[in-house]
């Protein structure tokens, strides 16, 4: 597996006697790094810092003047019922998605590890949704959830016609339905990561369990799960961070509705910022959103580094 961030070197800089050569080396190194660094500084870091600045103003995005309001936008955020609703929805969305992919993903991966034939074909099939655009996921599932869509046709066929509904039109089912669609697109990645982890587990542990007379379920909980702990943590955080940023799939289907039941931070920020032209307030939402993602991501990087040592 490619490591994203290997160890940061402990040596602080070139030693004194190397200083003269070090200067030239530093220059060469920065020439190599220049294209990436310049693009990153101008188009990612500067906007990120600008975002904090923006959140302290009231601005419609167009007018040449902007009014400095300090932390008023954050105060307003704190009292905004819709913001809390969006945050709650966002967390519920993450919880549903991650639970599905963790539980079903783990079971599927361990089933796959026992399957002797067709393992690669199954993996390919599970992974196909992962490479699909989020707009594809959104539109295909919106269609499946339609009143006349696949799910309702299926329910009618098996005699459960009473349960048919427009799944995305009902405030009670819209968010779980979208979480399932999003889980579908991340499921294959979880399976493949879990399977790689399971195949890395020392076989003798399974043999020992077998000798002790453990059945499949007992082996799963006594050997597979504890041995997979580091992999589970990484997958969990990866999926959590991805799910928390959900925007496309919601924007393309419900746009936060019905009655704000699928509003998440990204869609709420987009609405306030772009649709309503409240740049400052949108920025304050974005800052909050980013801080949450950053904290989760930093934790995941630390855990990943520790797992690889």
């Amino acid at each position, binding site marked *: 597996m*490619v490591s*994203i961030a290997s160890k940061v070197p402990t040596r602080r800089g070139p030693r004194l006697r190397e200083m003269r050569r070090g200067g030239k080396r530093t220059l060469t190194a920065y020439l190599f790094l220049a294209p*990436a660094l310049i693009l990153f500084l101008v*188009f990612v870091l500067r906007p990120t810092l600008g975002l904090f600045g923006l959140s302290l103003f009231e601005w419609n995005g167009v007018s040449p003047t902007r009014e400095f309001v300090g932390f008023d936008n954050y105060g307003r955020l704190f009292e905004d019922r819709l913001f809390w609703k969006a945050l709650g929805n966002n967390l519920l969305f993450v919880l549903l998605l991650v639970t599905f992919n963790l539980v079903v993903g783990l079971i599927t991966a361990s*089933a796959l590890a026992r*399957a002797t034939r067709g393992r690669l074909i199954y993996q390919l099939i599970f992974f*196909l949704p992962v490479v699909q655009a989020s707009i594809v996921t959104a539109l295909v599932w919106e269609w499946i959830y339609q009143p006349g869509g696949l799910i309702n046709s299926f329910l009618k066929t098996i005699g459960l016609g009473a349960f048919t509904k427009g799944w995305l039109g009902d405030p009670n089912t819209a968010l779980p339905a979208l979480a399932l669609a999003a889980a579908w697109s991340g499921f294959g990645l979880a399976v493949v990561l879990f399977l790689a982890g399971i195949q890395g587990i020392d076989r003798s542990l399974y043999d020992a369990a077998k000798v002790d007379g453990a059945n499949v379920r007992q082996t799963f909980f006594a050997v597979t799960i504890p041995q997979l702990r580091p992999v589970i943590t990484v997958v969990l955080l990866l999926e959590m961070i*991805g799910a928390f940023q959900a925007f496309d799939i919601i924007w393309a289907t419900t746009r936060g509705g019905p009655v704000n039941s699928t509003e998440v931070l990204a869609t709420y920020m987009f609405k306030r910022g772009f649709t309503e032209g409240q740049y400052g307030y949108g920025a304050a939402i974005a800052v909050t959103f980013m801080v949450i993602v950053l904290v989760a991501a930093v934790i995941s990087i630390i855990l*990943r580094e520790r797992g690889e040592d």
Partner: protein
Amino acid sequence: MASSSILPARRTRAIERGPRPRKLTGRRRTTRGLLYFYLTVVAAFSIIPLLLAWSTAFKDRAQVVTNPYGPPIPPALDNLETAWISGRFSEYFLNSVIISVVSVLAMIVVAPLAGYGLARMRFWGRRVVIVVLLIGLTIPITAIILPLYTVMRDFGLLNGYGSVIIAHVAIGAPFFAFIMRAFFLRLPPELEDAARVDGCSEIRVFWNVMLPLVRPGVLTVALLEFLWSWNNLILPLVFLTTDSVRTLPVGMLLLTGRFTTDYGLLSSSVLILSAPVVVLFLLFQRNFVEGLASGSVKG
């Protein structure tokens, strides 16, 4: 059975289970049957939504109604034609190709250079650069889309391919630089030392000695950058508001408003968008899976 997973095992000493017993006993056969039944149900969950869309793309209007879930027999190209011509998907397709290909070309220059610098050079400020890029990995695009929009507007780049391409490369740069760095770190240090002793300049060491050895890494970067820029919705949605420069995902988003219930057309657009990606994925599975497994958190 040398390799039974798309991904190599985490610890490489995964010992395959012993030879399968020649004859399965009754109970084992039931277990095995259940195992494959379960896997097939989950596979159906993964593939049916895609098959539904891909097959509907080949049905004509009547078939969509009379035969919504069956195979498209006989296949009809009406919907694909409508999407391609009157739905302007040929234009969107071309715009998507231009934006994705240029993004890939830019990225396979930017990422190996940066990855090499980070992996093989000792320089002043290295730690700071690494930490800054690590933080950059985690910044969500949606969060910075407001200020990024104003930056693009100030540079006069809105409604041009450049805005989306630059954003694709800038936002992806830290991630792909770290991927390339990991590939460069695997190479033995003796290589470049030998080349340096021979008097090669740093850029020649990079170009003639090191770069040819990390070709698989460059391929992975190219594939993932293509996947990401091809599928991306929010950047072209915000930066490109003129119809003539729009990309496929944005075109599809508009489709939901324009033709709400025309599923033949919708399916055709799904097919047009996903076909290139699926072909590339089937050709280079391992690169995709390894790259995506390494921790992309970008939507």
